[in-house]
């Protein structure tokens, strides 16, 4: 089966999952106590005004009717209108998507780029000091609350050393003319990198540690495989073995984990966005829960669900790309 058909099939399979996500979030969000209209209108609204607002948000209909309308709306790409902002949910999410995706992808990049060498070195020098050190780092890494790392970073690097900014993430794609003290694209990129480094490391540490552990054990397993011995027996150098013969195989478990870890990455992003005042989806959803802005709660959760499902499909596709044994029929 071709990659396109496979992708389409996976997307089709994702439909019931997404429907489930929509259903769960719809009923959960609607079960949140408190009347959003009350919050919207403030003290002493008139009856007719309440009625008008209810009609506007479709709250005057029975729950099942609203559910059906909502699902139909989602199918047409309409996630409703935020009660707090009065804006379309899709517009609000589009506005907040950038920082979150930037944060998540840079954290993943950080995690992968540190975990792979660390895991490989660890496996190569098994039970040597380097290995012990790397294992200690990963053990502590998976056990430290990410937000605490973030707080300590701010204290040390922003307050005491004053070398890194702690808030107001600058997007690398921001227009240089709109950014204070930035003249060129390069300035913006440098600023963005300086802003990103602390949130990225705080969020990425857990992933980095988890991946290092997997990389190490996976590498150890591959290095004891017979085909690696065979390569040695044919005079292939150790570095070539690591780089070529063992490396690719050892990445297979990593790829699977990358897809599944997305959910913990998203959870971490909620905290890290709060710590570093990053104006992304994580902060949006926490605030929406506080404000009982449930169209926004639902919309954000659904979008996160899509991010996750797409992430898993992408990892499966790359799995099939790396491992020829897996055909697109078999991946599931």
């Amino acid at each position: 089966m071709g990659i396109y058909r496979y992708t389409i099939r996976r997307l089709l399979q994702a439909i019931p999952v997404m429907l489930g996500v929509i259903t769960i979030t719809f009923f959960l969000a609607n079960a949140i106590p408190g009347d959003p209209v009350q919050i919207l209108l403030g003290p002493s609204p008139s009856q007719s005004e309440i009625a008008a607002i209810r009609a506007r948000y479709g709250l005057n209909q029975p729950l099942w009717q609203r559910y059906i309308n909502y699902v139909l709306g989602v199918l047409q790409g309409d996630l409703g209108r935020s009660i707090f902002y009065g804006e379309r949910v899709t517009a609000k999410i589009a506005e907040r998507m950038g920082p979150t995706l930037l944060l998540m992808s840079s954290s993943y990049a950080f995690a992968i780029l540190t975990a792979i060498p660390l895991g490989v070195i660890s496996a190569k020098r098994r039970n040597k000091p380097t290995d012990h050190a790397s294992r200690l780092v990963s053990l502590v890494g998976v056990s430290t609350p990410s937000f605490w790392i973030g707080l300590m970073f701010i204290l040390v690097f922003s307050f005491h050393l004053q070398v890194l900014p702690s808030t107001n993430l600058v997007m690398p794609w921001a227009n240089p003319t709109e950014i204070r003290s930035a003249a060129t694209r390069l300035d913006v990129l440098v600023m963005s990198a300086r802003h990103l480094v602390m949130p990225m490391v705080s969020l990425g540490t857990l992933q980095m540690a988890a991946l290092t552990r997997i990389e190490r054990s996976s590498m150890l397993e591959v290095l004891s495989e017979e085909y690696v011995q065979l390569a040695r027996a044919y005079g292939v150098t150790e570095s070539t073995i690591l780089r070529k013969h063992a490396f690719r195989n050892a990445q297979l478990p990593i790829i699977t984990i990358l897809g599944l870890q997305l959910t913990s990455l998203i959870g971490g992003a909620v905290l890290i966005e709060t710590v570093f005042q990053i104006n992304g989806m994580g902060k949006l959803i926490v605030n929406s829960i506080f404000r009982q802005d449930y169209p926004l709660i639902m919309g954000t959760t659904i979008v996160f669900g899509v991010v996750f499902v797409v992430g898993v499909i992408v990892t499966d596709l790359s799995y099939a790309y790396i491992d020829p044994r897996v055909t697109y029929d078999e991946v599931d």
Partner: protein
Amino acid sequence: MTDPILEVRDLQTHFFTADGVVRAVDGVSFEVYEEEIVGIVGESGAGKSVAAASIMRLVEDPGEVVGGEVSFKGEPIVEFEETEAGTRRPTDAMLSNREMRERIRGREIAIIFQDPMESLNPVFTVGGQLREFIEINRDVGESEAREIAVEMLREVGIPEPRERLDDYPHQFSGGMRQRVLIAMALSCEPSLIIADEPTTALDVTVEGQILEQVADLQEKYGTSFIWVTHDLGVVAEICDRVNVMYLGQMAEQAAVDALFHDTRHPYTDALLDSLPRPDRTVEELRPIAGVMPEAINPPSGCRFHTRCPDAREVCRQVNPDARDVSESDERPHRAACLKHEDVFHEDYWSSPPIDNETDSGFAVGRTDAGGSGDE
């Protein structure tokens, strides 16, 4: 006869585990001459594969070659010398890892592993893997390596080899993969190929075909083989000379006919008795009593005495090395058994027999092993 191309003397390979030192190979000597197929036979755990790996210096952590000599065409692959402190250390002359990699592995000695399913890297094409090894070991360019690969695949009986180069290992059957591995070994044009149970994982018909093919190819290319197996039937089919290993040591070494027809060691006898043969019924088959003790705690004296039907008290005390027990007109025939009293000069025949037959070999083996451990 000319000089042997490979000479192994008193090779010792130990594994240093948390539970103690495992003497997987404990003083093994043998040699391989040009254009011959030498068998190494033994039960699993006898140390055959470790011995084979030791020759290539491919023993993995926590294993280590700790003593003895291996020389290949006069080059010291393994060579130790005594230090003043009484410990052993590799000599300066011993080939460095780099020399091993660049001059010996693949180029001079190639290896074929037991499991064709595990020996090929699943994420690279068969052609890619072949080509890489050919390029490394024959100093040829990419396209030439490709031609050699195609030629060699055809040689080992893979149909449409050119098309199949771009296939991945999982697209080949087990037998086909083993042929690929054989092609891989041959295509590097080594002087010696170590085949570590290459046909064990295959079914009998495929095994037969491959053995035949190997025999033909061996003749054609004049390559020497070390054929590691637990199957005396295979040995009988293709080997010129045989080494029988038991618990890290050599039990008997002889030309193949002599071994089968003029067996000089009780262990070989037992092995032969356990071999199903067309001229015997199932009832006549006699499996070897008991299991092989673990190499971490070998019995004292002759290692086989716990299971040996001919064991006597002296066998508990004296561990015989393999010595030439051949008649003067014969080719060399070595055996490590004290019953050749004329060679070993121990009072075997006057020593009281140990009764291994009545009790289960397992129980006796354990008691004796325990007893000897206390001594």
